[in-house]
């Protein structure tokens, strides 16, 4: 099947989802990110790679952290960055998604970084660019609905590789609200593609998608059982804003059963790392003593995220579209 993210040479043209991305491309992104981590230590924290390129951060849904890390990544590559908080602008006046895109193309955009509440919005934009012969413009999915958040999944893989080196002997647990989490979907795809032998999802039945086993994971409804002997604990945020209706009792009760405390973490391997995509709800899904503890790698995740986004943007910008050779 044709993968809409790849050009006819099999190179990455857009980054829309990790699902279906070949292992060698994921590995190439992680390898490319490594030298970018060193740029932050220089006198001049900038590389000239994307000089003269215009990158539009199109955020139809608020996200300060993701937008900021994309902005820093683009600026460290010397690109010109325009931030559009679309939820408060033209779309509020009734403009359609593709009209917004067409207008920005007319302003000579080279890349769109798209965050949208609707699953598939970045894919729609990529299809539209291809159909209108403008596939030299690249699309990066910065989170779409419940579907995918590929750069978060990739930075998580970078973090795991940094601390654990090899994926093929790991047991990784993903804990919490998998149902509403695009991050969890991207993590599961990436982990299985990279050859992690055991991926566990741990959560209450109401917050796990039905038939989640079909993604190749082991399901646990008891956090103590699920955390036993794991190398990596990936916490998810309780998506308060995505909950309608009574899927949960109260945050206090959730914390009691599902919150990661030092006592529960002690069931994992002694050298297990704790990850969280942020923003954290302390005292809900994670206890402060764990979030600030020695096993937490939550702040390094943020730093690595910039390097991974630099790698993705520079790999995409180096592709010239399928119309040229």
């Amino acid at each position, binding site marked *: 099947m044709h993968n809409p993210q790849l050009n006819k040479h099999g190179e990455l043209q857009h980054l829309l989802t990790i699902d279906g991305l070949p292992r060698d491309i994921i590995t190439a992104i992680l390898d*490319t990110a490594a*030298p970018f981590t*060193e740029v932050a230590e220089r*006198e001049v924290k*900038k*590389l*000239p790679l994307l000089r003269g390129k215009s990158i539009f951060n199109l955020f139809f849904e608020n996200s300060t952290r993701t937008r900021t890390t994309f902005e820093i990544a683009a600026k460290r590559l010397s690109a010109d960055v325009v931030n559009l908080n679309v939820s408060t602008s033209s779309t509020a006046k009734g403009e359609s998604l593709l009209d917004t895109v067409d207008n920005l193309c007319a302003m000579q955009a080279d890349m769109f970084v798209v965050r949208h509440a609707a699953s598939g919005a970045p894919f729609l934009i990529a299809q539209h660019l291809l159909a209108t012969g403008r596939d030299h413009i690249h699309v990066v999915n910065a989170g779409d609905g419940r579907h995918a958040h590929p750069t978060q999944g990739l930075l998580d893989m970078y973090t795991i590789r940094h601390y654990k080196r090899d994926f093929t002997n790991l047991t990784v647990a993903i804990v919490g609200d998998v149902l509403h989490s695009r991050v969890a979907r991207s993590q599961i795809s990436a982990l299985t593609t990279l050859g992690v032998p055991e991926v566990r999802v741990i959560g209450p039945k109401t917050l796990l998608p039905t038939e989640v086993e079909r993604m190749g994971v082991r399901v646990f409804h008891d956090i103590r059982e699920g955390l036993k002997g794991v190398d990596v604990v990936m916490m998810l945020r309780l998506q308060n804003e995505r909950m309608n209706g009574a899927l949960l009792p109260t945050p206090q009760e959730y914390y009691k059963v599902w919150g990661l405390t030092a006592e529960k973490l002690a069931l994992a391997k002694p050298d297990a790392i704790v990850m969280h995509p942020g923003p954290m709800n302390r005292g809900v899904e994670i206890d402060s003593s764990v979030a600030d503890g020695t096993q937490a790698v939550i702040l390094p995740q943020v730093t690595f995220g910039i390097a991974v986004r630099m790698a993705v943007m520079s790999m995409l910008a*180096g592709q010239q579209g399928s119309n040229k050779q």
Partner: protein
Amino acid sequence: MQKLDAEALFQTLVEQMRPHVTPDTALVGIHTGGVWLAERLHQALGLKQPPGSIDVSFYRDDFGSKGLHPQPKRTEIPFDVEAAHVIIVDDVLYTGRTTRAAINELFDFGRPAQVDLAVLVDRGSRELPIAARYCALTLPQPLPASQSLQLETNAAGMLTLRLIDA
């Protein structure tokens, strides 16, 4: 073309450089051949500063047409560039574009007092106003574009030069 003896050329280069370096002179090798060369020069010249290494992938001027080079290496400058005497080391000098990229990258780490260029072989065909201050061999005739000259090293660090027909 005559057979190139990389070890003999290396000795020539050492003798050219010796009168002009002090223990504080810093070497920066360009990946990959230049890094091996810089390590050998560092030993032979008895320099104090650990040698640095540069991968110019992020500074190349052909990014727009060729894209990002696969598997870029880490640039590591383990000394303070500010006010330092730096010698950029590369195995083969060709168009001069790699040297240009390396100079640009070096300046993002600080303002050196002086920058020189040392190479084992100058193969001609320069496209930029760049010349090596230290050069063990300048080929009498520029090498055809279809050929490439590659430095290789073995486990013991011994250098050899190989001519490759593309």
